[in-house]
């Protein structure tokens, strides 16, 4: 997994609530057996019209946001299906950070497995960042995971919270499975105990 230390880039505003994972990547792109190449399908139904042409009004099609690295959105981002294709598509497009007032649990968790940082902030901070993001390329935002700080274009700073374990894994690009494997003796012990506590399993 790619490390996440600092990120500097344009933030795209998506001032909508309940952006679900069907919206982030529709089902026809779930037929793949690969993880890569999904960026072209990100927000497919918002991004393209019925003939496959770009919808010029959609934020990521506007010149200022075509290289956006950050999304700023409303409540309950990533709700619905558990599809990890949603963070895969975001990552493939180049989005490494999503800022919202709240996230659905499964999506939130999936982000960390892919080096995407989801940041939960109070509504007033998100509103401020949405305002900044509306200014497109004139509003470069920097996220520093080490200090848990977002620096806005006008010198303002916003602090965010994240548990230490997730932060440590992201900063170092750690593979969860390898970390867990270090606890193999504890898993062995649990399973040995299972034979007496719940032998029918």
């Amino acid at each position: 997994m790619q490390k996440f230390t600092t990120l500097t880039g344009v933030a795209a505003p998506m001032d909508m609530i309940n952006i679900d994972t069907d919206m982030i990547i529709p089902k026809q792109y779930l037929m793949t057996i690969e993880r890569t190449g999904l960026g072209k399908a990100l927000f497919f139904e918002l991004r393209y019209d019925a003939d496959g042409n770009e919808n010029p009004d959609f934020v990521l099609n506007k010149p200022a946001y075509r290289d956006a690295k950050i999304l700023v959105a409303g409540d309950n981002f990533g709700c619905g299906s558990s599809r990890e294709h949603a963070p895969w598509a975001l990552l493939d497009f180049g989005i490494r950070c999503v800022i919202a007032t709240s996230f659905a649990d499964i999506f939130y968790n999936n982000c960390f497995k892919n080096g995407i940082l989801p940041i939960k902030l109070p509504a007033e901070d998100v509103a401020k960042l949405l305002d900044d993001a509306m200014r497109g390329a004139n509003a470069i935002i920097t996220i520093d995971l080490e200090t848990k700080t977002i620096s806005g274009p006008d010198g303002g700073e916003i602090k965010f919270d994240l548990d230490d374990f997730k932060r440590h894994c992201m900063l170092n690009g750690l593979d969860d499975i390898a970390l867990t494997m270090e606890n193999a003796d504890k898993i062995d012990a649990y399973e040995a105990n299972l034979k007496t506590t719940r032998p029918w399993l």
Partner: protein
Amino acid sequence: MSDPKTLFDKIWESHLVDEQDDGTCLIYIDRQLIHEITSAQAFDGLRASGRKARRPEANLCVPDHNVPTTPGRGGTDEIEDDESRIQLETLEKNAAEFGLPYIPINDARQGIVHVIGPEQGFTQPGLTLVCGDSHTATHGAFGALAFGVGTSEVEHVLATQTLIQRPAKNMRITVNGELPFGCTAKDMILAIIGKIGTAGGTGHVIEYAGKAIEDLSMEGRMTVCNMTIEAGARAGLVAPDEKTYQYLKGRPMSPKAGAWEQAEAYWRTLSSDEAATYDKEVVLKAADIAPQVTWGTSPEDVVAITACVPSPEDFDDPAKQEAAKMALKYMGLTAGTPMTEIAIDYAFVGACTNGRIEDIRAAAAVAKGRKVAAGVTALIVPGSGLIKEQAEEEGLAAILIEAGFEWREPGCSMCLAMNPDKVPPGKRCAATSNRNFKGRQGADSRTHLVSPAMAAAAAVTGKLTDVRDLD
């Protein structure tokens, strides 16, 4: 004496392998269900790192999302769509390579993961059970801690039989009293989502309690737990009781005689302590619930069938007003229209929400002696091959076919448009599935979520209908 605990606390603590100082836990995962859409990349990951499946027999693989449901469908090799066939072949190959139990498409036991888990006795009280599918919440009906995971976590479970997690918060939803005539588990959960919203349960595990929950069949409890994810909570729970044990007894993967007694004694310890406290509590009166129907593009956009399409101005929150405006435009609806005046083109009874025998019985009870309205396509899709067989033996299939419903092979079908069953652009469907998101049933399709009886009622009248008003 130790602190009073909730059912969730008890299951969590009994699965704790390790806990770090910052509260991050390693929890043991007893069982995993695997389907074709969210697993291929997990198996690739195992191969790339030279890892094996730690406990192959703790998994059960079955194709469901992509499978065609057309009568007489053949085996995997007969699937016309190349991508779907490749995904099924990939699952079959991966199951064989890693030694995982696998149920093929043309086996009577095949069906939707969340239907066959309980049906096979794979799902049991007190387990931790995961699947790369958000509707894994369904299995909470048995008092199992069951939740959806992403593909990276599918791989993590395959490799280590554990997951890195932090404990959820506890929430209890109590539904007191008795459901009125014409109301079902589906109406109950839609009413709950309408009340608490699609993020109402985020970060929590929801335990359902109260007489109306206890009165539900196992099928009904599965319907309620299934849509818990639509209320934002990853898992729902109902404490196991006599109905649970009765349902599980004699199932192929249930504990056998000898072990059964020991298992049941353990299951009987699985309820929340009386003095347990919850981070959030919601109480509803079952008597207040009327048959529900959604009008918008989020499951929280729900009203009683007796109501009218709401107006964006009915909402206080500007973000919700904006969402309502967009939803009405997408759905082609005008505020103020009575819900019962909305004509439909499709009706769909099935999915992991409502594809069980009780659901098909409810649809058949409405269909009996009636005909599907002209211009309406109505599908009944059993959740598994065994349910299909049972419905045929009970004569339900004959009633439904006589009424003009299409009688299909099992699969996820029209819930998610990943197989040939789709609602065409601009068409409207009364569906028993769980999501009314934009494009969910096909590009530009319009979905109204309802109970099986309500879907059948809409099919025979050609419009959304209060099932209580049918003669």
